[in-house]
């Protein structure tokens, strides 16, 4: 038995909004792989919950008319990984979520929970940042869409107001077309492990594969919330695909990131990882884009 005061089961997105307004103390439960653990540990014991797990309308990956990729917030990691649209257009996201926990966690964990928990180590987050994803939020006033970067307000805090829930994660056509990427999760073990640091790099190369037309570097556990190495990106855009550029990335990112000491790893190790992972992820992203780095 879980120590839960009451559960309200939503029958539709609209109903979820109504229940959230009616029970302002209640917390949303999607797959529960964060929430139920917290209840077991006593950190959320005695809470009220609004369960959205039954809302099949919030599951699945679709291609919109504008060729944006829309991932319903309740889509599980295992379904994202197996989805043909994801495999074809944003394979890095599938690969990233396939590194979450173990198979049973990937069957229950949702991308909505992974973003709404506001956690910096969330495996989908750095890749969603690297894809300039949008977050679709539904609430009493209807639907609003915000860039993922402004969705995160601080560690464990996201931009959800009273009565609101996240209904989809959107990857716009312009942010995946022509881009190739790679995500690296660094942890002490290969499975059932939270990332010590994670880095996801997307590149778009020139036609002749010699110049970096665009680059996006997303991080998890390089700051209190997932982030982008924006200063580095500006410097690297337009540079040659070369070992020199690769080294430059490894150096510049250290000025973007602000990792901290934790029981899992020291700040120094994380700084080293931020640099090394960016270089390695960049190298692989370039390779996938059809480019070659000499040396």
């Amino acid at each position: 038995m879980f120590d839960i005061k009451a559960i309200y089961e939503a029958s539709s997105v609209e109903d979820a909004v109504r229940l959230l307004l009616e029970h302002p103390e209640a917390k949303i439960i999607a797959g529960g792989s964060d929430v139920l653990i917290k209840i077991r540990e006593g950190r959320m014991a005695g809470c009220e919950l609004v369960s959205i797990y039954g809302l099949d309308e919030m599951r699945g990956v679709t291609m919109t008319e504008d060729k944006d990729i829309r991932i319903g917030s309740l889509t599980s990691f295992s379904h994202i990984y197996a989805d043909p649209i994801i495999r074809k257009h944003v394979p890095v996201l599938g690969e990233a979520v396939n590194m979450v926990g173990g198979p049973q966690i990937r069957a229950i964990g949702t991308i909505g929970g992974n973003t709404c928990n506001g956690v910096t180590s969330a495996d989908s987050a750095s890749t969603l940042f690297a894809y300039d994803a949008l977050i679709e939020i539904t609430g009493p006033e209807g639907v609003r869409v915000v860039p993922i970067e402004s969705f995160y307000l601080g560690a464990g805090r996201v931009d959800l107001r009273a009565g609101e829930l996240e209904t989809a994660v959107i990857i716009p056509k312009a942010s995946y077309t022509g881009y190739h990427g790679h995500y690296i999760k660094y942890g002490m073990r290969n499975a059932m492990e939270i990332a010590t640091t994670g880095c996801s790099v997307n590149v778009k190369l020139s036609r002749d594969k010699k110049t970096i037309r665009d680059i996006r570097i997303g991080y998890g556990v390089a700051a209190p919330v997932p982030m982008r190495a924006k200063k580095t990106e500006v410097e690297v855009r337009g540079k040659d695909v070369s070992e020199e550029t690769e080294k430059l990335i490894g150096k510049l990112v250290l000025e973007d990131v602000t990792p901290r000491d934790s029981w899992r790893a020291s700040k120094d190790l994380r700084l080293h990882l931020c640099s090394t992972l960016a270089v390695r992820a960049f190298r692989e992203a370039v390779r996938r884009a059809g480019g070659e780095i000499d040396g």
Partner: protein
Amino acid sequence: MAEEMRQFRQVTCTINGKKKTTMVDVRASLTDMLRNDYRLTSVKKGCEVGECGACTVIIDGECFDSCIYLAIWADGKEITTLEGLEGPNGELSDIQKAFVEETAIQCGFCTPGFILTAKEILDSGKLYTDDELRKLLSGHLCRCTGYDNILRAVKKTMLARHKARG
């Protein structure tokens, strides 16, 4: 707070091929419901926080940790526990026999979970590399045998089924 008001809900689901209905406390996990209401004690209570896989069951074809799955969510679902693998006269299935033959069992606490994950792997009909099998089995902890015998049992059954299909 006044005396807690207990909330119940009717849950109808198919368990090991049979349709069943019961009233569950909304605070119950699926482990609680399967063990207490249906006496399916192959579903083990291990860590109860999604780490060890001892409570694994198959829901609509996919393995889940039943300890972190609310019983109310099982409404309308098709659930398989280890008991569902038994033949009409109590025969063991191929994967269970392979676990015995390869000494992939000692105390047996992790075994029902491992076998259900193995069932999902084998039912996919795909051939996996050892590394892929390790990743697919990584949601289970075993305190006794080590993982080599378990991996061997799954691989052996995978290859045997592949051969039988021709």
